[in-house]
C-alpha cells in the first residue's frame, strides 16, 4: 500500500464522531471511483466496525481509535486499530442470521454486515495496535 496516499483519522471513542468517520470514508470512496451503492456499503461496513469498537470498549481502553484509509488504484483498504484487548471477532461473526435476529445479544450483526459488504476482511491482534480489522474492497476496473 502506498503510504503517501494514506489518510489517517484518530477519533475519540465516542459515538458522536461516527458521522465524521462515515463522511471521510464515503468521500474517499467516491474519489476512488466507486458507484453510489458501493460507497454506501463501504460506509456502512466501516461504521459497523467503528461502532463495535466504541460500544463494546472497556473503560480502561485507549480513548482514541485510529481509522486509516488506503485508496490504492486496485484495492480500497480501510484499517481500524482500537488499541484495546483482544476481541473475539471471528467468533462473533459466526452468526446464523435468523437466530441472531431473535437474540438479545448485539454486536454480531455488525460483523455480518462487514463480511457481506466488503470483499476481504482480516482480523489480527497486536500488543501495540490492539484489535486490527482490515477491510478491503476491489476498485472497479472502470475507475482505475
Amino acid at each position, binding site marked *: 500500500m502506498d503510504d503517501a496516499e494514506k489518510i489517517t483519522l484518530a477519533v475519540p471513542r465516542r*459515538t458522536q464522531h461516527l458521522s465524521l468517520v*462515515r463522511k471521510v470514508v464515503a468521500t474517499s470512496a467516491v474519489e476512488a471511483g466507486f458507484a453510489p*451503492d458501493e460507497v454506501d456499503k463501504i460506509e456502512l461496513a466501516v*461504521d459497523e466496525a467503528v*461502532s463495535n469498537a466504541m460500544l463494546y470498549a472497556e473503560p480502561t481502553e485507549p480513548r482514541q481509535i485510529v481509522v486509516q484509509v488506503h485508496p490504492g488504484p486496485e484495492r480500497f483498504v480501510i484499517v481500524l486499530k482500537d488499541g484495546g484487548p483482544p476481541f473475539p471477532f471471528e467468533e462473533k461473526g459466526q452468526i446464523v442470521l435468523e437466530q441472531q435476529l*431473535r437474540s438479545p445479544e*448485539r454486536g454480531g450483526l455488525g460483523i455480518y*454486515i462487514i463480511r457481506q*459488504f466488503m470483499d476481504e476482511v482480516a482480523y489480527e491482534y497486536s500488543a501495540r495496535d490492539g484489535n486490527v480489522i482490515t477491510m478491503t474492497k476491489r476498485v472497479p476496473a472502470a475507475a482505475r
Partner: protein
Amino acid sequence: MPDLKLHQERLPGGIAYIEAEGFLDAHTFEEMENLISSVFRQNVYKLIVKLEKLDYISSAGAGVFVGAIGRAKENRGDIVFLKPSPNVKEVFDLLGLSAIFQFADTRDEAVTCF
C-alpha cells in the same frame, strides 16, 4: 441539525405514528429505543414508522426494531414501516428484516396492516 429527528402522533385505532429523519446509528439508536419504550408503556403496540427521510441506518438502529417487534406481537400489535428510503431498505433486506416486518407505501395502507 440533530443527527436524528423524531416526530410522534397518535392515530385512531390505538396506533402510534412515528416519523424518523436523519441518521439511526450507534449514536442515536437509544433515542428511538426510548421513544418506542414510552409508546409501549402507554399500552400502545401498533406502530407505523415512516422512514422516507431516514438517510441512514446501521445494525444498531435496525436492532431497535428487532428488539421491539417481539414485544409488539406478544401484545397483539406489530411494526409497519412506511416508505423506507432505498439504502435503508437495502440494509433491511441484507439482515433479513424484510421478511419479519411489514412495509407500506401510504399511511392508509399501513393502517390496514394491523
